[in-house]
C-alpha cells in the first residue's frame, strides 16, 4: 500500500500531544466537580482574561497545526517501479496550508507589500546596455501590470474583501452563539443579542466578540493579501516574513509549555516531600535547590546548553533528519530551562505543604493510619494544585521572552529552527543597513508582544481567580468593571459602602 505521506512524530510533538491529552482530561475532570469549577467561573467573568484567551486560542491553533508533522511522498521515476520514496524534508500541516508563503521565495529583501526588490540591481538590456534599477519581484505583486499606479488600489480592495469575509464569518458566529445561549436560557435571540451587547451575560461575551472581530478581519485581510503579496516583506534570502512569524509561534508555545511540563515532576515531588517528611529529607532537598538556585539562571543555562552542543556534535546517531536534530535541541533546551527553573515553585510547594500537614484533617488521616502516599496524593496534592496552576501560567510569558534573549546569547534554539529569537538575531544587523530593513524585526516583536501580552492578561485573570488575596488589577476602577459593580450592589453587599475607602489587599 502506498501513502501520500509518512507521519513523523518528533519528540516535542509527542510531548505536545501528551500535554493536550492532560489538558483535556483536566477540563473533563474540572467540569464534573463544582468546587473545582468555581474559580474557573471567576476566570470566565474577567473581560480582559477572556479576551486574552480568545487571542491565545488562535496562537494555540496555529501552534497545533504546526505540530502535525509528516514527510510527503515524492515521485520516484528513476527505476520505473511504483515504490514511494518519502522526502527528507519534514513538513507540518501549517506548511501545507501556508504553501504559497513557504514556496514563493524571492531573491532577497523586499519591503511589505512591495512589488520590487529592496536593492538596485544591474540589469542587462536586450540591446547590450546596462541599467541599475529595482527589479520586479518574482511573486509579490506579480499580477499587476503597472505596480506604481495599481498597487494601492489593489491592496486596499483585497484587504477590504478579506476583512469583509472575516466580518461575515464573525456575524455567523455571533448568530450561532446568541442562538445557542438563547436556547439554553429559554429567551429570545434578540434579547440575548442585546444582553451580550450590554455586557449583561455571565461570561463577558462582548469582550470576546470584539476581540474576535478584530482577529477575524485581520486574519481575513492577511490571508487575502498574502496570496499575492509578501505582507510583512521578505528577509535576506527572500523568505516570507509572515510565514516565519507563523512558524515562530510553535517554538514559543513549546518553550512556554513543555518547560513547565519538564519541571513539574521535580518541583511537585521534591517540594511536597520536603514539606511533608521534614527532617533530613527536607535538609537534603533544601540544600539541592539552594545550590541550584544560587547559580545565576542565564549562566547555568549557558553552561548546560554549551555542553549539550558538544554532546550532540559527538552523538550524531541520535537523530536522522535536520528537523529531528533541531527538535531534539529544542527539547533539550526545554529540559535545561525546566531543571534550572523548578526551584522557585519547589520552595512555594514546600512552604504550603508545611502549612497543610499541620491541618486537622491531615492529623486525622494520620490517626486513622492512612499511608503517607495516600495522604500526599489524596489530601495534599489537590490542595497545592492552585499554586502549580498559577506558577504555570505566570511562567509562560517569561519563558517566551527568555527564548529570544537566549537565542541572542547563542544558547537558544537550533539556528535552523524558526523562532522569535532566531528571527530577531538574524534581523538585528539589518538595522545598520542603509536603507534600513525594519520589517523582520518589527514582525517578530509584534507577534511576540501579542502572544506575551495575552498570556500575561490571562495569567492575571487566573491569578485573581485562584488567589484572591493578591490583587494584581485594580478592582473598582471605572469602566471595565462596571459589570462587576452592578453585581455587587449595595443591597446584596451591605458592607460595600463602608468599606469603600479600604482597598482589598
Amino acid at each position, binding site marked *: 500500500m502506498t501513502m501520500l505521506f509518512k507521519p513523523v512524530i518528533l519528540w516535542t510533538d509527542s510531548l505536545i500531544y501528551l500535554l493536550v491529552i492532560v489538558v483535556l482530561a483536566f477540563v473533563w475532570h474540572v467540569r464534573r466537580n463544582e468546587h473545582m469549577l468555581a474559580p474557573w467561573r471567576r476566570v470566565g467573568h474577567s473581560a480582559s482574561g477572556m479576551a486574552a484567551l480568545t487571542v491565545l486560542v488562535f496562537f494555540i491553533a496555529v501552534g497545533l497545526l504546526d505540530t502535525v508533522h509528516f514527510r510527503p511522498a515524492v515521485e520516484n521515476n528513476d527505476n520505473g517501479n511504483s515504490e514511494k520514496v518519502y522526502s527528507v524534508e519534514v513538513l507540518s500541516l501549517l506548511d501545507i496550508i501556508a504553501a504559497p508563503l513557504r514556496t514563493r521565495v524571492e531573491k532577497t529583501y523586499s519591503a511589505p507589500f512591495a512589488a520590487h526588490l529592496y536593492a538596485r540591481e544591474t540589469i542587462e538590456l536586450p540591446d547590450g546596455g546596462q541599467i541599475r534599477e529595482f527589479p520586479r519581484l518574482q511573486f509579490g505583486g506579480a499580477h499587476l501590470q503597472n505596480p506604481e499606479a495599481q498597487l494601492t488600489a489593489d491592496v486596499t480592495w483585497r484587504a477590504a474583501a478579506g476583512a469583509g469575509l472575516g466580518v461575515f464569518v464573525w456575524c455567523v458566529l455571533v448568530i450561532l452563539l446568541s442562538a445557542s445561549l438563547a436556547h439554553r436560557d429559554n429567551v429570545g435571540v434578540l434579547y440575548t443579542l442585546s444582553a451580550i451587547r450590554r455586557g449583561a451575560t455571565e461570561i463577558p461575551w462582548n469582550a470576546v466578540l470584539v476581540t474576535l472581530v478584530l482577529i477575524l478581519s485581520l486574519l481575513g485581510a492577511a490571508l487575502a493579501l498574502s496570496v499575492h503579496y509578501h505582507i510583512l516583506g521578505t528577509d535576506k534570502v527572500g523568505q516570507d516574513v509572515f510565514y516565519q512569524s507563523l512558524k515562530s509561534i510553535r517554538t514559543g508555545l513549546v518553550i512556554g509549555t513543555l518547560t513547565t511540563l519538564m519541571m513539574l515532576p521535580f518541583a511537585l515531588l521534591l517540594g511536597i516531600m520536603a514539606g511533608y517528611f521534614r527532617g533530613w529529607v527536607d535538609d537534603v532537598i533544601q*540544600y*539541592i535547590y*539552594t*545550590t*541550584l538556585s*544560587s*547559580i*545565576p539562571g*542565564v*549562566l*547555568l543555562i*549557558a*553552561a*548546560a546548553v*554549551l*555542553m549539550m*552542543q*558538544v*554532546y550532540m*556534535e*559527538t552523538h550524531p546517531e541520535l537523530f536522522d533528519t535536520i528537523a529531528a536534530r533541531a527538535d531534539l535541541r529544542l527539547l533539550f533546551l526545554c529540559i535545561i530551562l525546566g531543571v534550572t527553573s523548578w526551584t522557585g515553585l519547589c520552595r512555594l510547594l514546600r512552604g504550603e505543604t508545611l502549612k497543610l500537614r499541620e491541618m486537622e484533617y491531615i492529623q486525622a488521616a494520620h490517626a486513622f493510619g492512612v499511608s503517607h502516599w495516600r495522604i500526599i496524593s489524596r489530601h495534599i496534592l489537590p490542595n497545592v494544585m492552585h499554586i502549580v496552576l498559577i506558577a504555570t501560567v505566570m511562567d509562560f*510569558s517569561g519563558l517566551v*521572552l527568555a527564548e*529570544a*534573549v537566549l537565542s*541572542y*546569547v*547563542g*544558547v537558544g534554539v537550533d539556528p535552523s529552527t524558526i523562532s*522569535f529569537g532566531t528571527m*530577531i538575531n538574524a534581523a*538585528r544587523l539589518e*538595522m545598520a543597513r542603509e536603507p534600513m530593513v525594519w520589517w523582520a*524585526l518589527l514582525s517578530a*516583536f509584534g507577534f*511576540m*508582544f501579542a502572544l*506575551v*501580552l495575552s498570556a*500575561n*492578561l490571562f495569567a*492575571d485573570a487566573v491569578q485573581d481567580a485562584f488567589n484572591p488575596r*493578591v*490583587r*494584581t*488589577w*485594580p*478592582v*473598582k*476602577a*471605572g469602566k*471595565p468593571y462596571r459589570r462587576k459593580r452592578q453585581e455587587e450592589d449595595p443591597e446584596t453587599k451591605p458592607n460595600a459602602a463602608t468599606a469603600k*475607602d*479600604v*482597598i*482589598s*489587599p
Partner: protein
Amino acid sequence: MLNYIIRRMLYAIPILIGVNLITFTLFFVVNTPDDMARMQLGIKRVTPEAIEKWKHERGYDKPLIFSEAEQGAAKFTHTIFFEKSAAMFAFDFGQADDGRDIAYEIKARMLPSLAIALPVFLLGLVVYITFALVMAFFRATYVDFWGVVLCVALMSISSLFYIIGGQFLISKLWHLVPISGYGSGLDAGKFLVLPVIIGVISGAGASTRWYRTIFLEEMGKDYVRTARAKGLPESIVLFRHVLRNAMIPILTGAVVVIPLLFLGSLIAESFFGIPGLGSYTIDAINSQDFAVVRAMVFLGSLLYIIGLILTDISYTLVDPRIRLE
C-alpha cells in the same frame, strides 16, 4: 551579630562546594575533555595528536579525580578536579583560550559592568517606587487602572526591543549619544546614558507593578486604618507609615541583587559594546571558551550567596522585630 554573620558564611561553604560539583559534572563528566577538544578542533579530520595537544595546553590531560600514577597527596592534586575546580576557591580560574589570565580579566572588567548596572539599579529603584506610590495614592481610579495597563504592556515587550528601539531612536535618528562604545573616566558618561535609560525602562513594568502590590497590601493593614482614624493626612500615612513598612519586602528583593551587579548585564553590554563581564561571558559562550564560562558560573553563585547574607543582615537593620539568633 558577628556570630551570626560567621555562621551564615560557614553555611555558604557547602553550597559553593555543591555549585563546584555541578559545574565539574557538567563540564568534565557529561562530556569528556576529548569530546570538547573534538568539538573545538572540528569533528572531522582531527588527529589524536591534535586532541592531545589541545588537552595538554589546557591541562585537561590529567585524570578526572584520582591519579594512579602519582604518589602521596599528588594522587589527588594532579587531577582535573583539583586543578580546575577546587582551585576556584582560591580565585585561581586559570587561563582563557586566548592565553590571558581569567582572574585578571575579571578584575579589569568589573568596573565597566558596575558603571551601568549600579546607576540602573539605583535610578530604577527610585523611579519604580515613585510610580508605585503614585499608583497606590490614586488607587482604584483611572490613574491606577491605566498605570497597571501600562505596566502589563511594558512587561510584555521583549528587552531586546527596548535596546534595539532605543539605539535606533536616540542614537541613529536623533544623534543624541553614540550608539555604542566605552571610554575611560568622565568620558564614559556619554556612552552610559543610553544603556542606563534603557535598563530602567525595560525593568519598569514588572517592578512597578510588584511594588504597587506591596504598597496596597500594606495599606490594607490595621495600623494604616488607625493612622487614618487619627486624622492623619493621606500623604503622611503614605510616606511615614506605608512606605517605611513596605521597605522590608522591597529590600529583600533589592539587596540580594546588589552583589550580582558586578556581573553586569549580558545583552545590554554586548549591544552597547561595553567591555564588562557580561560581554566577556557572551564572547566566551560564542567562542566556546569553557574555562571562562566555568569561572563565571562560580563567581555568579558566590556573589548570589553574598547577596543572601547581605539580605539577612539588612533585615535586622530595617526591621527591629527580627533578631538574628
